[in-house]
């Protein structure tokens, strides 16, 4: 059992939105080369992370329990 905590990784939707933004900037005519290189590096790292996240993940099913004191606890379920 563990206490409910927000996930430390940013939501995938945010990751993909940021990637879309990076690509758009790279595709725009007014981005300087040095800025483009920085964006490219960030994009590559984010793409790799997103792909790993999509491929490696395994569905997690947890039951949410409210304790007497009002605390929320999560327990893994074999569903």
């Amino acid at each position, binding site marked *: 059992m563990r206490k409910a905590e927000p996930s430390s990784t940013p939501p995938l939707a945010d990751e993909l939105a940021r*990637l879309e933004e990076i690509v758009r900037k790279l595709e725009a*005519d007014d981005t300087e080369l040095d800025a*483009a290189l920085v964006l490219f590096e960030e994009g590559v790292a984010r793409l790799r992370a997103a792909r790993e996240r999509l491929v490696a993940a395994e569905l997690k099913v947890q039951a949410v329990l409210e304790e007497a004191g009002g605390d929320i606890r999560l327990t893994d379920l074999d*569903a």
Partner: protein
Amino acid sequence: MNLSLALNIPTAADQVWSVGELSVAVKALLEGQFPPIWVRGEVVQCKVWSSGHWYFTLRDRRSQVKCCMFRLNASRAGKPPEDGTEVFVLAKPGLYEDKGEFQLIVSRMLPTSAVGQKQQELERVKALLHRDGLFDPARKRAIPGYACTVALVTSPDGAALKDVVTVTRKRWPCARILLVGARVQGEGAVEELVRALRLVNRIPGVDLCIVGRGGGAREDLAAFNSEAVCRALAAVRVPTISAVGHEIDISLTDLVADLRAATPSAAAEMAVADRRDALRLVDDLSVRLASGLTGRTRLAAARLARSADRLHAAVDGVLSSRRNLAERLAAQLDALSPLRVLGRGFAVPMDASGRVLKQRADFIRDESFRLRVADGDVRARVE
């Protein structure tokens, strides 16, 4: 001429049925023709056997039919109805082979008066919720594109959990399903659903909430028509999907939720993205990222070349204007030059030290001096 016909007796050529065979065949024929159907009638002679099964007759002005309701279903129907009670029964027509009797196997029984009351109550709640704007299309929120944490309010023992898990595992295995358990029918269902929906608002990181249950009879869906559950659903802070597994009926939670799904499986399909689509998007972004950088590099190279050309042009321009200026200044200098004056026939007398002799007093008898003419010096002497 056929002898058997003349004597009107069966022959070896005729197929003779046993009673049992005929019963089996008729039973199969009958049961194959009818899915469970709702039948309306008046109950008479309802007998409760020690086994818990109910046997009664359902009749109207024209006809009657024997009915059997087995223990499990009978126990859910409440008290045995009194003679003359008008009811709806959900039943499957069949044949009781032992007695060769046509009968209905009843799975549900609802007094028609109760149905009327329930319908009135439903309309009352619906009007209230409508008045308060809970069905307003303007308050519908969009379902997030890549929901990762899905809260599922349903029974821990029901089919809905399994269905949602199965679909999500297949489509979007990077998701997390948080089961917020609640009874979905019977006593306490309303209170548990309300509590569970309120709990969803306290779980951090939830992207979406599905509330629902697997298929059930109409009266089993009552909790999803309750005012309290509808209001609790409307107060959920994340987008919601109602999935009350009953294709025909729409429950009030279906109208309050941001999205309605016919079944929990359908809700899961709406709730989460398909991993294959997301991977295709990532591939597409990879290609665009690479070509974006290539394009940018080419553009920079082209810009650099253009800059060099412009620099050359600029330098050339500066040099050219400087040259013109120099030529102009040279011409002016030339006009002012004493050599130019000498060229017109004048001469400049100078002593040995190069001092110009400008007055008579500068010339001393017998002294030699130089005369500077256009093309050089001439030695001279004062007489």
